[in-house]
């Protein structure tokens, strides 16, 4: 069943407690008591949900009071959209192609607030001083709950669901805090959302801050078992976290520009595409002027970004210099290669992926560009099983292949190409309109040149 809305509620609660000594069962019960107090707080009638960019305020635990008369318990949650002031100061840039794409669920962002002017008691202020030595522990808990619903779900259900989600998240956070506590050192429990295959949908996992993914293998194994996820590819590494449609990427690179294109309509043909998320790397980015020599490096960066964003590695996409250094390190190049403007090819790409990521790649050779039209099956298989972007180098150019449309019967084929030779800015419209990311036919290749393709293989790991 399609979910139309994701309600996302964020807020920060402060966890605080005083420990007389750092260890022992007494500390545990003190910590648990503090969490219990926080759970009471979110179940109290003083909590208020506000919908961002709107005047909507809802008291979910006080008989569902709402600040907007038209929104009541029984209102369909979709009605909230009418109250939200959209902040699109800029024009929506979209080529006509983009409009045809199905858009995902709408995210409604909410914040958690507390009403401080409804005191439960009436005692006059007093000051209590405790003069024993203690460890005072304070930590912000970054609450972040989601609820996926259809458009006709009532607001009352949404709010009850969110209050439950808050309680559950606090309980999950308590578990993580206790499990990773060492004496009086506490790690901040951080929520991560993951979009899993149905029926699980969007789930939230709490990971302790500062503990790298490599040390959380056992936790992921448990969760893979629980949600019946395949055990050969990562779903729950931090990099796999769900990217909310309304959130911008901080690094500024475009993600998956190809989704804004319509695949060519070839009779009897099927679509085989890269799986997951990559960033578009191309000439002139990062203040590096590699116009004329850096195309293979950029394709390699695109591939690296795929491995990073699917969670296989936590390191950043390498620079040209780091790529060159990797080749020197494996003995493939002399030290003076570093900081030069020498081209690299598929073999070097394969070597660097192995050296920096531990990823193996298959190399496919075609003696003439015209032969590429016959490689439909291999490419289709690659995208189906591995799903990684493919680097192709030949003649004097390098490109990235992101997918094919291929008919097993007629052999007709089209290639989805991401072109690293683009020198402009991260302007999606230009990139798609001018074909820097676009579908090309077999005539795109130099029919006489020979080509090498590097097909990176997914490591079998979670």
């Amino acid at each position, binding site marked *: 069943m399609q979910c139309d809305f994701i309600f996302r509620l964020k*807020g920060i609660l402060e966890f605080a407690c005083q420990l007389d000594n750092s260890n022992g069962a007494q500390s545990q019960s003190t910590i648990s008591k503090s969490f219990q107090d926080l759970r009471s707080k979110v179940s109290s009638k003083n909590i208020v949900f506000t919908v961002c960019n709107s005047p909507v305020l809802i008291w979910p635990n006080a008989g569902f009071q709402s600040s907007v008369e038209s929104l009541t318990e029984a209102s369909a949650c979709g009605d909230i959209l009418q109250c939200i002031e959209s902040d699109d100061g800029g024009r929506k840039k979209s080529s006509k192609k983009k409009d045809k794409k199905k858009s995902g669920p709408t995210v409604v962002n909410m914040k958690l*607030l507390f009403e401080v002017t409804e005191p439960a008691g009436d005692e006059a202020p007093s000051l209590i*001083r*405790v*003069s024993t030595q203690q460890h*005072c522990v304070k930590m912000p808990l970054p609450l972040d709950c989601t609820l996926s619903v259809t458009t006709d779900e009532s607001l009352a259900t949404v709010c009850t669901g969110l209050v439950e989600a808050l309680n559950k998240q606090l309980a999950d956070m308590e578990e993580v805090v206790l499990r990773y506590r060492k004496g009086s050192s506490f790690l*901040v429990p951080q929520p991560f959302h993951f979009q899993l295959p149905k029926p699980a949908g969007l789930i939230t996992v709490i990971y302790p*801050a*500062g503990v790298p993914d490599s040390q959380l293998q056992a936790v992921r194994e448990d969760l893979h078992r629980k949600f019946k996820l395949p055990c050969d590819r990562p779903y729950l590494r931090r990099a796999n976290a769900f990217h909310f449609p309304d959130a911008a990427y901080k690094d500024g690179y475009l993600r998956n520009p190809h989704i804004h294109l319509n695949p060519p309509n070839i009779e009897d043909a099927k679509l085989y595409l890269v799986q997951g998320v990559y960033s578009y790397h191309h000439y002139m980015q990062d203040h590096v002027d590699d116009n004329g020599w850096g195309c293979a490096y950029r394709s390699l960066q695109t591939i690296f970004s795929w491995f990073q964003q699917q969670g296989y590695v936590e390191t950043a996409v390498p620079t040209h210099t780091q790529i060159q250094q990797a080749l020197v390190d494996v003995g493939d190049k002399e030290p003076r290669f570093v900081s030069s403007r020498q081209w690299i090819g598929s073999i070097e790409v394969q070597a660097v992926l192995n050296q920096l990521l531990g990823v193996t790649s298959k190399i496919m050779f075609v003696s003439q560009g015209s032969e590429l039209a016959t490689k439909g099956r291999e490419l289709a298989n690659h995208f189906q099983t591995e799903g990684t972007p493919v680097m192709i180098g030949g003649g004097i150019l390098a490109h990235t292949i992101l997918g094919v449309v291929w008919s097993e019967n007629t052999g007709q084929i089209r290639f989805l190409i991401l072109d690293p030779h683009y020198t402009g800015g991260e302007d999606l419209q230009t990139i798609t309109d001018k074909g820097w990311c676009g579908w090309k036919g077999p005539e795109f290749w130099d029919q006489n040149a020979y080509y090498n393709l590097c097909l990176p293989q997914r490591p079998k790991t979670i």
Partner: protein
Amino acid sequence: MGRSYFVDEAVEEYLSGLQAAPGSCVTGLLAGQSSPQRDFVVLAVQTPHMESEGQPKASKGVSPLDDIDVEWVTEHAKQVSRMLPGGLCILGLFLVTPPELSKDAQNALKRLIFAMDKYIIKGRLWELSEEDVTDRVTLHICFKTKKLVCKTFDVKDPKSSAKPADWKYQTGISSSWPMLACSVEVDLQIPVTGSSSDNTDKCMKDGLRRWAKPIEAAYCLINGRQALDDSELISGQVKTLSFLCHVDSTEQSELDERSSALVQVCSGSMRVRGVVHCRAYIHNNKPKARHAAQAIKRDIINTVCSRVEMFLEDLLINEGSQKGAVVHHVLHVLLKGMVHPKMTILSSVTHSHVVAHVFVFLLYAVHKRRYFEEY
């Protein structure tokens, strides 16, 4: 163009009834509310005589102006400002002198006004906004001729010079000022590191500062609607007031960097809890909803701060008189001699609407009970 001070007639009465020994000076405070266009003065109160034991102090200088005890004047100002309800503050000082001292009065007033403002704002937890008026008024009255000289100084500029200002009397200035009231529950746990009282003070200040930030940033709802904008607050229409806060003051950027808890080894902790009742008045010259919200937020912060300050002063006084690890103090501070004898005067000069609610705390050291008295 100078500022305009609209002054309640009751203040005129008070000022003209002041007594002074021949050749001596009288100082006092002027309280009210400033708005960007004009200022309203609703209260005047003379600096009380300090009850001195033993010999009266020898004259310091050549003129009675030099004898003005700046510390005493500023202490009085601080105590009175603590007691003013939200929206009202000390707007300036008056000085009554015999005719022969009139020409030196301006210098004396300038010294006093800067010293007073500096002392009052010490320890204040909220920041002034751009719209806040930083001019303070000095009023010089010649005892013999009753002539008034009214000038203002911009207290945020130490080099500022006196600017002329208008002083106009009117009836019933504050009679229709809307009042906002609310009760806020406070429950602060503040760790104390180190053992000196300076440490305690600093820890309390830091803890209060953290507590005050979400209050300052809170959504304020007046009659259920957010008081964000420049919509007018209409007198008589304020029925409900509530504050909605983000619970924690942690900034997002701080949150991104924080991966573990902040752990402090403390020599103890202080917990402040209870309910404070706050109120604020807002002038009725086209007041804006967000100014009203700001006034009461500041009152909440000031109220809690001054209670804590008084608790700590009390603790210092009573240090060592209690045994045991847990010491429970309920606040009592005696303001006798500072303001108490003047309370009757306070209530008669001010319009009953405005400073009718002033709290006085009386000390009952033996019984440890707390009293509020409303005049």
